[in-house]
């Protein structure tokens, strides 16, 4: 393996470890680039930004995020190993990665909700309602929805990838479909289709708390 590819492999492993430690849906994109690289590329950088975006959302919700030292064991690597091209890091099925995070080939800029991730949070919080039946039955949990941000910023191909209950799934699906147009992702200066994932958490208030407001808890999205 060349030096650039070795670095790329290590960085992918770090991204995967950080994503897994924080419950972020992420599979490293399969790389079809032939020949050497510099260890990173616009597609890899877009993956970093996606993970950082997801971490920011969690921080904004007051959740603890685990990043510091998550991949500290990689510090044991040494430059000689890389120079000798003998560095082999378990690449967590990078070669056979499952569905791509990105629809476009190489995305330089990820799509963005109008006003940024904080506005996305606010939108979901204000527009998601706890289904009565789920509330009555005490159903709660996290629904994960994926969708494609089209070249014109519209939302298509919304799909529930982690289901909790029919009523919660339907509400999460509805609110995702209701979003205004996004700023599209960009590839080589051109708008491109990008797949995006949003987890929506439905949580009922504790029984000893004031239950007059039975809409979503503050942690709509994590």
């Amino acid at each position, binding site marked *: 393996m060349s030096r650039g590819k070795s670095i790329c492999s290590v960085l992918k492993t770090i991204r995967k470890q950080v994503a897994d430690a924080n419950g972020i849906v992420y599979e490293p994109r399969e790389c079809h680039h032939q020949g050497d690289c510099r260890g990173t590329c616009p597609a890899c950088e877009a993956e970093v930004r996606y*993970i950082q975006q997801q971490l920011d959302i969690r921080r904004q919700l007051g959740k603890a995020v685990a990043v510091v030292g998550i991949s500290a064991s990689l510090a044991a690597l040494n430059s000689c190993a890389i120079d000798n091209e003998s560095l082999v890091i378990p690449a967590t099925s990078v070669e056979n990665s499952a569905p791509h995070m990105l629809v476009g080939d190489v995305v330089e800029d990820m799509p963005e909700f109008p006003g940024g991730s904080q506005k996305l949070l606010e939108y979901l919080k204000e527009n998601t309602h706890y289904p009565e039946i789920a509330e009555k039955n005490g159903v709660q949990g996290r629904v994960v929805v994926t969708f494609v941000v089209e070249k014109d910023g519209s939302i298509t191909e919304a799909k529930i990838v982690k289901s909790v209950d029919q009523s919660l799934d339907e509400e999460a699906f509805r609110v995702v479909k209701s979003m205004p147009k996004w700023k599209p992702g960009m590839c080589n200066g051109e708008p491109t289709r990008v797949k995006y994932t949003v987890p929506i958490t439905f949580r009922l208030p504790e029984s000893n708390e004031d239950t007059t407001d039975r809409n979503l808890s503050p942690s709509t999205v994590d």
Partner: protein
Amino acid sequence: MKTPLIGICRHRLSTDGQGVTTLVAFHGCPLRCRYCLNEQCLRPDGVWQQMDAQQILDEVMIDDLYFKATSGGVTFGGGEPLLRSDEIVTFCQLKPADWHIAIETSLHVDLCHLQAVAPYVDHYIIDVKDMNPDIYRRYTSVDNSQVIDNLRWLIAHVESQKITIRLPHIPDYNTPTDIAQSRTQLESMGFTNFDCFDYVIR
């Protein structure tokens, strides 16, 4: 204040400091080493960019996630980074707390520069070259008494575990015996971590 740089090199995996690091290399050096690795640091046209501390931070921030996840960070090198101690201090005051800071230096600078950065540096990589004054002068064209004074200050104020001493075999300038003598002298001063290697002449 803008500082001349010869380059910023990303994704160095444990090359100069633990974890994923970015090398920020400054222009300018008081030494004139015969086998200088980054000769552009001495040439007037060797400046890659002029940046202030905030601009350097903005440039390296792209790898924040990797730095934090691997306990890595930024390594200052060059050239002689301690000549830019003001900018390094400003940078360290602005940077995220979890980044590690390493510095690759010859210590051939006024003590005040070393004292200024000491509160912020997590690891020192000291390019001692050779402790023998004659060998040092022949190879670098300058005297090493200031280096030895600064080494004494460093070991009196910083844990030895935070310091790596580089003792290269420099073809035509020193021998394995010279290196062993340098090491013995440095061990008697209290240094414990040594990186002994051969200069590869290209």
